[in-house]
């Protein structure tokens, strides 16, 4: 009797997923179509763009990339962005890792208060402090510097990184740390030799999410850097589209170069990206 009913349900479900697949495919076209178009258009010439705006190129040209690389000064801005990303990710991993370890294991007096503080801090609207922060940074001479932006990015990413790392560390078995202590390891050794090797997936997730955020960041960069020498790739590209707004082949190629590393990383590690971004990887 029960088996019969289950069979019935099973059959009904099988039937109905056709409908699901059709609509999901339409949604996929909606989501990926524009991205694919961006890639495809990077290979077209401007003349072809007007005649054939949505199709495949008749001739796959690579020259747009070279042109965009040079005109958009991508060599310098890529370097700058890599510095911002690497600087922020390493600072965030070290200092948020330490804080998360303390909160997860050391039971510091006032630890709950710290958690509440971070929770509130992560929802305070950025515009409450952005304007005074700008003038403070100007007074300190931190505008248009690498450390100026890196410090801001690290602070903005701190609540999320600490939460995620802490929840990762809490899940690890304590026994291994105790064993290391019995063997005479001090706190730092426990952290470096036991915690980090065990919790690397957590660190990787946080690093990816923070790195992605910094690579893509626009708002803070546009306010805190005015010197083209210091532009990250996003704001430099913004100025670039201002100059070459109608040169679609060029702007498409530039945008494609900017996202290509992100897309490759995402496809390789999409599980971690999705996990990290949906666990409070909130855009600031």
């Amino acid at each position, binding site marked *: 009797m029960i088996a019969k*009913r289950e069979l019935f*349900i099973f059959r009904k479900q099988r039937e*109905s*997923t056709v409908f699901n*697949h059709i*609509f*999901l495919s339409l*949604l*996929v076209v909606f*989501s990926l179509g524009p991205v694919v178009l*961006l890639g495809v258009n990077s290979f077209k010439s401007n003349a072809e*763009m*007007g005649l054939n*705006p949505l199709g495949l190129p008749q001739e796959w040209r690579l020259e747009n990339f070279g042109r965009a690389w040079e005109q958009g000064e991508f060599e310098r801005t890529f370097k700058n962005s890599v510095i911002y990303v690497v600087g922020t990710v390493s600072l965030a991993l070290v200092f*948020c890792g*330490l*804080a998360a370890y*303390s909160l*997860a294991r*050391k*039971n*510091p*007096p006032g*630890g709950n208060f*710290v958690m509440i503080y971070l929770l509130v*801090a992560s*929802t*305070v*609207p950025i*515009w*409450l*402090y*952005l*304007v*005074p*922060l*700008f003038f*403070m940074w100007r007074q300190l001479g931190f505008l248009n510097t690498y450390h100026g932006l890196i410090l*801001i990015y*690290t*602070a903005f990413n*701190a609540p999320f990184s600490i939460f995620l790392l802490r929840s990762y560390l809490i899940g690890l078995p*304590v026994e291994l*740390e*105790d064993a290391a*202590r*019995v063997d005479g390891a001090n706190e730092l050794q426990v952290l470096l030799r036991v915690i980090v090797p065990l919790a690397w997936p957590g660190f990787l997730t946080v690093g990816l999410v923070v790195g*992605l955020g910094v690579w*893509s960041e*626009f*708002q803070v960069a546009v*306010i805190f850097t005015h010197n083209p020498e210091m532009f990250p790739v996003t704001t430099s590209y*913004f100025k670039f*589209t201002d100059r070459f707004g109608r040169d679609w082949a060029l*702007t498409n190629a530039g945008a494609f170069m*900017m996202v290509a590393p*992100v*897309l490759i990383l995402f496809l390789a590690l999409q599980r971690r990206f*999705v996990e990290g971004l*949906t666990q409070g990887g909130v855009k600031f």
Partner: protein
Amino acid sequence: MAADIATPLESGAVQAPNPPGRKSKRKRPWTRYRLMRYYVVPWLFLIPILGLHGFVVVIPALQGVYYSFTDWSGIGEAKFIGLRNFEEMFFEDQSYIDALSRNVQWMIFRMIVPFSFALFGASLLAKVKRGAMIYRTALFMPFILPSIVTATIWRYLYNPRFGLPTLVGYDKALLGQSDTALWAIAFADNWQFWGFLMVLFLTAMQGIDPVLYDAAKVDGANRWQEFWHVTLPGIRPVVLFMMMMVMIWAFLVFDYVFILTGGGPAGATEVIAIDIYKNAFQRFEAGYAAAQGMTICLFASMVVTGFAFLRKRGWDI
């Protein structure tokens, strides 16, 4: 909990020492070792990042509160002028009121369009076994794109010479007209954002007890009834929480507007954040900009309070 497991062997005593903040039967003397172990070391680990965060966020936030009551230009002395900035904002500055209304329109759009897309996509995907991971990855992908790239893509798609509108014979610039620009920007934002919501809803849907679906099927529920009576109640906490966050974020929108129209045409897309940006960095009215920032904070806390109130009234958020 963790500390008393971690310590007994190291302290040389067999019994666990008492961590602070915990009621203990025996009082232990405050040795230097215990002070280091339970107070100094944990806080040494916390202080660097909390110090940085305080320096970058808390101090400027407090300064912002102070400057919002002054006529500060950004340079030099700030003169205390009481509530004058807020008076000006709400009673004299029409552009602020207009900007605020655009943020509210943005909020309403975001509460309807991405939520519908996400609920639709997630309820379809929850039933699918084969290829589920591929669908999820593909639909989530726009969310990882930098805003500047999304903006470039949609500027291309909206262009009046050979973009999408021309396919249906519409040859006006969607971003260039005051009655369509804000919605065109909001749709580009939706394209990027809804996949993120969908994954959150999907995760929540996978936590719903399948027995409920079986029961609904046995009772002869159709797709719509099943969604309305089983799926939606099952993921309600996530939906309501994200509604709250989306309402708060709606007051912060900056990137897409700044990149695509810069507030134009003729101020038709000027939202609060753009107004603040211009006041602070172009018109040298930092005090007034700080006051506008304060109002965003005020609206955000009103949203949070509203949801907390509903929860208290038994809405089970």
